[in-house]
């Protein structure tokens, strides 16, 4: 038996809507098999992983904390991927945004006032955008592959942060621990409802960003331009759209959002700089973007789902004694299944029998 793809005359609306759900269902099923293989009761394990972490209000706040950076970054990446620009270095832009945003609270810890926080956020976004402009510049000026350059810059950014918190920016009162000073209260992103949980304004930023980018993509000329250049650069050139502008635009907007996510995370959830400030948000956001079908509103939902995989990983570690790496496995599987289900949008799948001779076999 062999699998053949038959092109549909037009893209299937049904599967376009269904594919994220099919992917999630397949991931849960594969997860059950994985848990069974690890010698756990699959149903109980799935409950621990997917349901238990979101049964109480404070847990929903934790979900929002994890979802905020994923959504912010994912929305930016959706712009990139729609334009066929492959920024996979959002993790580095996140880190650099966190660093540039922290210049004020770390180097001028006495600065207080209402203006501190907005300035930090702006500087974070600018830092992320500036860092993202490096691969954009190399791509447009020298035709250098942006996948590899943006990815290499992730390692560079992480090493730079590592040096900062162990060297120049280390808190002298921290007994040699590699960390910066604690941000003063006016540099800390406020919590939404401190009585109920830890979620901070970062989640609101994420929702606002999603709506704004959705408006841009679906209602504005820029969104049309992105779609045209992404699906056919040639047609875009005839329409007078400049591909190199688009590369910069996509990188700058996704870099700015990743930088904003970085400074929001540091100023909100962490409160200081540390050697490691992200459990791979920049990479997980790639999955978020695809699971959300590159649609900012879908990305909000996808961000919550992937935030749940982080919480589930932590729960599996404490309750089941499984490595929290299981979260990465779930995330990888989810992306695989999303991409596989997306095939159904453009193709029908036909199972050809053994007896049939196809042209290729002959």
């Amino acid at each position, binding site marked *: 038996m062999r*699998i*053949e*793809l038959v*092109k549909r005359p037009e893209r299937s609306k049904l599967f376009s809507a269904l594919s994220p759900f099919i992917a999630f269902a397949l991931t849960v099923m594969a997860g059950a098999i994985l848990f069974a293989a690890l010698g756990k009761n699959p149903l109980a394990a799935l409950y621990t992983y997917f349901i238990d972490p979101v049964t109480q209000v404070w847990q929903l706040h934790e979900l929002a904390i994890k979802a905020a950076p994923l959504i912010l970054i994912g929305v930016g990446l959706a712009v990139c991927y729609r334009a066929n620009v*492959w920024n*996979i270095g959002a993790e580095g832009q996140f880190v650099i945004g966190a660093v540039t945003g922290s210049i004020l609270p770390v180097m001028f810890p006495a600065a207080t006032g209402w203006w501190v926080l907005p300035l930090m956020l702006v500087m974070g976004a600018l830092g992320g955008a500036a860092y993202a402009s490096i691969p954009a510049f*190399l791509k447009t*000026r*020298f*035709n*250098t*592959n942006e*996948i*590899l*350059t943006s*990815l*290499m*810059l992730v*390692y*560079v950014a992480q*090493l*730079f942060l*590592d*040096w900062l918190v*162990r*060297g120049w920016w280390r808190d002298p009162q921290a007994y040699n621990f590699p960390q910066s000073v604690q941000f003063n209260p006016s540099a800390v992103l406020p919590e939404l409802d401190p009585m109920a949980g830890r979620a901070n304004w970062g989640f609101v930023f994420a929702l606002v960003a999603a709506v704004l980018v959705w408006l841009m993509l679906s209602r504005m000329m820029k969104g049309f331009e992105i779609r045209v250049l992404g699906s056919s650069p040639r047609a875009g050139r005839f329409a007078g759209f400049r591909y190199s502008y688009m590369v910069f635009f996509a990188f700058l907007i996704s870099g700015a959002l990743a930088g904003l996510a970085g400074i929001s995370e540091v100023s909100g959830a962490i409160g200081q700089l540390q050697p490691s400030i992200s459990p791979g948000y920049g*990479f*997980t956001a*790639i*999955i978020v973007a*695809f699971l959300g079908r590159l649609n900012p509103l879908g990305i909000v939902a996808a961000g919550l789902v992937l935030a749940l995989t982080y919480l589930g990983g932590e729960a599996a570690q404490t309750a089941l004694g*499984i*490595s929290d*790496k*299981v*979260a*990465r*496995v*779930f*995330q*990888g*599987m989810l*992306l*695989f299944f999303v*991409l*596989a289900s*997306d*095939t159904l949008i*453009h*193709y029908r799948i036909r199972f050809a029998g053994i007896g049939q001779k*196809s*042209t*290729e076999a002959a």
Partner: protein
Amino acid sequence: MDITVNILLTIATAATPLLIAAIGELVVERSGVLNLGVEGMMIMGAVCGFGAAYLTGSPWIGVLAAIIAGALFSLLFAFMTLTLATNQVATGLSLTILGLGLSGMIGTNFVGLPGVRLPNLYIPGLSDIPVVGKLLFGQDPLFYVSIALVIAVSWFLFKTRKGLMLRSIGDSHSSAHALGIPVIAYRYLAVMFGGACAGLAGAHLSLVYTPQWVENMTAGRGWIALALVVFASWRPMRVLAGAYIFGAVWIGQLHAQAFGIPVPSQFLSALPYLATIVVLVLISRNKRLTMMNTPASLGQPFVPDR
């Protein structure tokens, strides 16, 4: 003199995994498929190689397990991109993400265990020749495998009929299909060869370079291997040269750290990654060179119409 020989030996050790992974990816890309999952396949090879060697006590079984693990893992990518025609960039990324997670899970119990090292070759007499003896006859077995792979791949691609067919598929899959060449079958084999090589490269890390299991021990080498293929403009001999240049950068920064050069160690550690960017820029700014050598169908999905 001894110091020079030792430095050359360590450069070869650092270059070998890059070379093996890159030469495998070169064949994949020559067939027109872009597999960004090298890092994931490599780390799977590293963990499976370490595990099999530790459990059986034989590093050779470890090497075999790593090759099989890499090839099987790449089969997942092949099925997705070739049979289901998914986006190659995204699928390759998911292979890397899955590989990093899966290897972390498999390796949970291996952390901190003493490793088994693949013994160096030693030929009495020949290995004792001063200077060249150790360089030519006293290295780890995978060093010789890596050199043999470069020669074999070079010969296969440019001197055999099947190699010509593979390159023609990479340059125009529809023309190749029209000529009756089984495009998908060739690509399946190419991807699995690339996976086996990436797995072997991972085994070199966990059985030779640092014989132990450390999470994320590939440290971006899979990505550097991908960059090497571009740097080499898809030529096997240039991959060899590139891998040794990168091996030298990698070892150079380690020695600089050891000598206590008054530059923060993080800056030195960043050098291989920065060097990758610089090299990519230097190569890709030459438009004619890249245009002439890039397989024309690279990264494009192919669905045979029947």
